[in-house]
């Protein structure tokens, strides 16, 4: 490639003047907000230390990562996994450090299930001897493991998984099989090429009798040369929308024999003579599942906040068209329509943040009771975490996709950072409980609570509003009313209560007509999911309001004011976009909706001066998000140009395919068919 025409040394450029101005005019101190998002000044400091270490390593920050093939991406991600473990040992990282390192790396390692699923399962599902045997091997990385549950034909309905483990009493062994094409294990991360072992979920069969799903530990690959063991067919499942650096795998088992001791016997056992015994039902399993769902709300915050930060900075730098024809071109951030794309996304990121924070602190406080199996508490927490996992991932994906489009054509470049963030984050609506299924689980719990409220029973915290009389909540009659988030919250409660009661009534009516329960449920399924979503929105608004109010004493008034504006915008934005719910329940009238709309427009103007500072507070370093549009100094065009020059297709002035295909056509010498 010839020498570049324009300056491409992007390290030597001054900060874009528009961004400088934005930062100078913010009403609050950005660092104060960053500390809140990190969880304290000390944690921010630690994050910066780890960022300096990790992101200075080319395996994590090279600009060429953008151009890798799938196989090269995997190789790089494997290297990242190895480096993170080596650093952890070398620098004696704490659990918190490890989690933070993963966050800095956006979890883009190849082997995450070894620590996230394999080791916890070994701790949880094993007998004492089994733990003593397997755990040290896994902790020392003498074996690399994964967790194989989902099959090609089954994800949601666990009871119908088809893999079998048949006990052979003569040999004292289990024989594992995936009898049909739909039975093969499909999707587990690191199963394709990395793992030497897997915990496989299979139907236990003893002398023709089924004993439900049990977990078995299976060696997949030789510890000498890493080739698959006899009877095992294993490989990568191929290209995906995102996450192509992970070797998600498939696994076919054909008469694979393992000793009886390889069934994990913490909760159930099979004796030498083939007696099956259920020892205890596993409640810790639930708490892990709920914890993963809580962590997904945290990831949803990270993905959305990073994307908002990129979009906000670029919108402050990009100038296009004019508002006043006589004046010059304006920052696109000054357009009301652009603000209406960006600010609700920003407000949603904060709402998800406060919700996630509350879920995490509740979890830590109640963990002991959850493990003990407190039924009330489990049901409540299960309902809340299912709904929040679903609603946060739904909201996040909707906003990220809209944010990508808000960047015009350049948002379609992988250099924008958002297109890749979007592809990777899209998996969150499906993993760890498909969202539509989760909403229904919450709906089931909520309808029971509605019935309980009607019969005057006691209600747990998150559904306490069902027991309140909300009929006399005042109406929204002015912009001041709309800005009173406590009043708006009451209206959300009124709406959610009535929607739930209406859904329950519909279901009840069908049952009274004599419809069997399953038919009545499926007939009202959309209504029930809608009711669970209504409740989910209420819960998000409530966590957001409580989160912001909780900062009042410890945080500067300017920052509280800025966060309140976002909190208010969030509540009104989702009120308007779900106007049907509010009108159907007479919580809001059509003319009041006009006030809701105009208040939102006022809020957009009020948020505008703080917009870049609010996004800056997310504080993701350039080497972490790798977006040329979202760089801190705003020199986006220079970076785009410099990056384009690095494109492998530009290595030669004339691409090899010119000689192969194009030249003959232009010259008229292409062979005539």
């Amino acid at each position, binding site marked *: 490639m010839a020498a570049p025409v324009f*300056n491409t040394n992007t390290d030597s450029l001054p900060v874009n003047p528009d961004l400088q101005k934005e930062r100078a005019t913010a009403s609050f101190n950005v660092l104060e907000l960053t500390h809140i998002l990190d969880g304290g000044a000390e944690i921010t400091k630690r994050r910066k230390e780890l960022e300096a270490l990790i992101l200075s390593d080319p395996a994590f920050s090279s600009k060429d990562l953008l151009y890798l093939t799938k196989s090269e991406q995997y190789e790089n991600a494997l290297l990242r996994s190895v480096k993170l473990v080596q650093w952890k040992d070398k620098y004696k990282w704490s659990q918190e450090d490890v989690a933070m390192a993963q966050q800095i790396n956006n979890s883009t390692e190849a082997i995450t299930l070894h620590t996230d699923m394999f080791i916890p399962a070994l701790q949880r599902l094993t007998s004492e001897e089994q733990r003593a045997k397997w755990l040290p091997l896994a902790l020392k990385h003498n074996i690399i493991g994964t967790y194989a549950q989902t099959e090609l034909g089954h994800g949601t309905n666990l009871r119908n998984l088809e893999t079998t483990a048949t006990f052979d009493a003569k040999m004292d062994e289990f024989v594992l099989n995936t009898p049909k094409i739909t039975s093969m294990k499909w999707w587990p991360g690191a199963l394709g090429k990395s793992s030497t072992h897997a915990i496989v979920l299979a139907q236990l069969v003893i002398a023709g009798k089924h004993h439900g799903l049990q977990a078995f530990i299976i060696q997949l690959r030789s510890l000498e040369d890493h080739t698959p063991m006899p009877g095992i067919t294993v490989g*990568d499942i191929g290209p995906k929308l995102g996450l192509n650096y992970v070797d998600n795998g498939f696994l076919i088992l054909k008469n694979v024999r393992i000793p009886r001791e390889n069934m994990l016997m913490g909760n159930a056992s099979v004796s030498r003579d083939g007696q099956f015994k259920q020892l205890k039902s596993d409640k810790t399993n639930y708490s892990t599942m709920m914890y993963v769902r809580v962590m997904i709300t945290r990831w949803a915050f990270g993905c959305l906040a990073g994307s908002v930060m990129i979009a906000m900075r670029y919108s402050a730098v990009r100038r296009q068209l004019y508002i006043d024809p006589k004046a010059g071109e304006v920052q696109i951030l000054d357009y009301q329509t652009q603000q209406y794309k960006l600010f609700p996304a920003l407000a949603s990121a904060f709402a998800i943040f406060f919700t996630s924070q509350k879920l995490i602190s509740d979890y830590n406080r109640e963990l002991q009771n959850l493990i003990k199996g407190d039924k009330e508490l489990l049901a409540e927490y299960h309902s809340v975490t299912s709904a929040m996992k679903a609603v946060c991932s739904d909201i996040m994906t909707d906003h990220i996709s809209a944010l990508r489009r808000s960047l015009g054509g350049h948002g379609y470049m992988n250099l924008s950072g958002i297109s890749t963030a979007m592809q990777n984050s899209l998996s969150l609506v499906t993993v760890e409980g498909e969202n539509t299924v989760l909403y229904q689980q919450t709906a089931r719990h909520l309808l029971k609570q509605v019935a309980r409220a009607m019969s005057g029973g006691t209600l747990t915290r998150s559904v306490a509003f069902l027991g309140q009389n909300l009929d006399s909540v005042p109406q929204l009659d002015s912009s001041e009313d709309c800005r009173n988030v406590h009043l708006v919250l009451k209206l959300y409660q009124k709406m959610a209560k009535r929607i739930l009661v209406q859904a329950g009534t519909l279901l009840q009516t069908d049952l009274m007509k004599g419809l069997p329960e*399953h038919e009545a449920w499926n007939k009202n399924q959309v209504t029930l999911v809608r009711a669970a979503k209504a409740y989910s929105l209420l819960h998000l608004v409530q966590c957001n309001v409580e989160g912001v109010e909780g900062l009042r004493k410890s945080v500067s008034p300017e920052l509280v004011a800025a966060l309140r504006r976002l909190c208010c915008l969030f509540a009104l934005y989702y009120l308007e976009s779900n106007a049907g719910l509010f009108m159907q329940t007479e919580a809001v009238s059509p003319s009041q909706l006009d006030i809701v709309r105009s208040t939102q427009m006022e809020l957009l103007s009020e948020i505008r001066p703080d917009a870049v500072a609010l996004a800056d507070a997310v504080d993701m370093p350039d080497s972490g998000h790798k977006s040329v549009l979202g760089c801190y100094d705003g020199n986006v065009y220079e970076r785009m140009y410099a990056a384009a020059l690095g494109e492998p297709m530009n290595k030669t002035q004339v691409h090899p395919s010119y000689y192969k295909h194009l030249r003959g056509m232009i010259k008229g010498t292409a062979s005539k068919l």
Partner: protein
Amino acid sequence: MFGTDFRPIFPGNSYPFRLHDSMFRQTIQKQGRLEQREKWGTLAENCSIIGTYAQTELGHGSFLRGLETTAEYDVRTREFILNSPSITASKFWPGGLGKTANHCVVMARLKMSGRDCGMQSFIVPIRDMETHNPLPGVTVGDIGPKFGYAAMDNGFLSLNKVRVPRENMLMRYSQVLEDGTFIFPKNDRLVYGSMTLIRTSIVGSCGRALAKAATIATRYSAVRRQSEIASKGGEVQVIDFQTQQHKLFTQIASAYALMNAGKFAANLYNQVSAKIEDGQLEDLPVLHALTAALKAFSSWEMASGIEQCRMACGGHGYLLASGIPQIYEDMVPACTYEGENTVMCLQTARFLNKCQEATNRGEKLPPLAHFLQAAKGNRKSGLSSSMDLTQLVAAYEFRAATASAEANSRLKAQRAEGRSEADAWNNSTQLLVQAALAFSHAFTVRAFVESVQNANFHPNVKSVMTQLATLYALTGILRYCGDFTKGGYMSDSQIRLVQDRFFDLLTALRPNAVALVDAFDFPDQVLGSALGRWDGNVYEAIMETARKSTLNKSQVHPAFYKYQKPFMDSFKAQAKL
């Protein structure tokens, strides 16, 4: 009713010659003089030259007048000197520009002895016809990896004082004479004609892209069995779940609606074009307004609809083998190209606003916008349990008229508060965008209803198409129910009727769901999907693509020896110590 007239020959848009066909040759034909058409047009047609069309720059897209590339006339040598003065002036994005094209139509600001003569188009040779190397003064290359469109070498181009002969400016409208005299065009409104045509064709393309995704998701939902409805009743096809029907059937209806709207808009374009040839230009504004927002409406509906279909396929929808990511990646740029959607909506809103003001003055509106007068007076919907299609159309037109009147009154209120025209407009743009979308939605519903009512269908087809059109209309009423109940237009009990009917329709459409997507008749090669195969052997097909994964070339990946083995060995060594 859903004709094949706009079906593209290529299954996707992503191939290097696309702009040679669609823009380079078109521009020469529309903007070249006879002798230019003969010279360049013939070379391009024979593919002796390969061209593209370079308008968008690194710093500018939507605002054409902000483009920075310049062309200065040198009277002495009778040449134009083309220049990219800054980094933001580099042309960026044109398809085929990076590695394929050897010529390019470049849009540049013409300067005649310092005087600004507006945007003009120039044919610029960029690569040597013998060696294909870039010509002196030309820096050209590929812009790098994108969300999709990997098969297209979208390019950048900077010109450093590149000289082209005077004859290389396309001079059908504006002219530069040898002595440097600039002649202004007589009528440049006609230049917009080709933009309108392209936007019209995007509407139908969006419908077809959504139809592909709906085909894949619906066929897969018929094959996939998961969970039970009745306990011990056995696993059911996921298409039997009401929530799944809601996701799929609304998108099937939307695909039919958008394909049909595209056809209606194309017919309209042809009618108006014929009139323009006769010198009648009065329908041009309404056509322009309609196609601008309709392009935005249809591409946004398509993008969210395809995503809904992909997520309806659960985890397997995330595999590239599902085919849906490819459809999404290839078509979602339609929200941005040929006029960014928000900008498009605001162009339409300007027209709607003029209509409101004309109505307030008591003037008559053009036929397509006639219903905007409907906002006047205290109206009540006559919708009853029969869900009469004409009543549904009236409801959408009421909503569009109300939205347009509201945006207009917000604008007037902003002015009355003493804001400048510019600020008053910017403070009203969100409502204006919503009004433009409501206008397009009403057009789409009317087009769907009219085509169902007027087509000469077999009674069985007519019955199912009526169900589908009704479902389409009811979906929007439930989604925007706040708009439809404004001023008491629809009552709570009417909304309840709509809801009941909506759920009944899901059940009624269930037996025909697969037939409705089979009717799109996409060959498997076009869908490119393991999940959407006509024969439904989805698991075998997914497995076949997995086996071809590049990671499976060897049983042990080379990265194992490079990183994983030394890593595990280091732990083994520690254990021995």
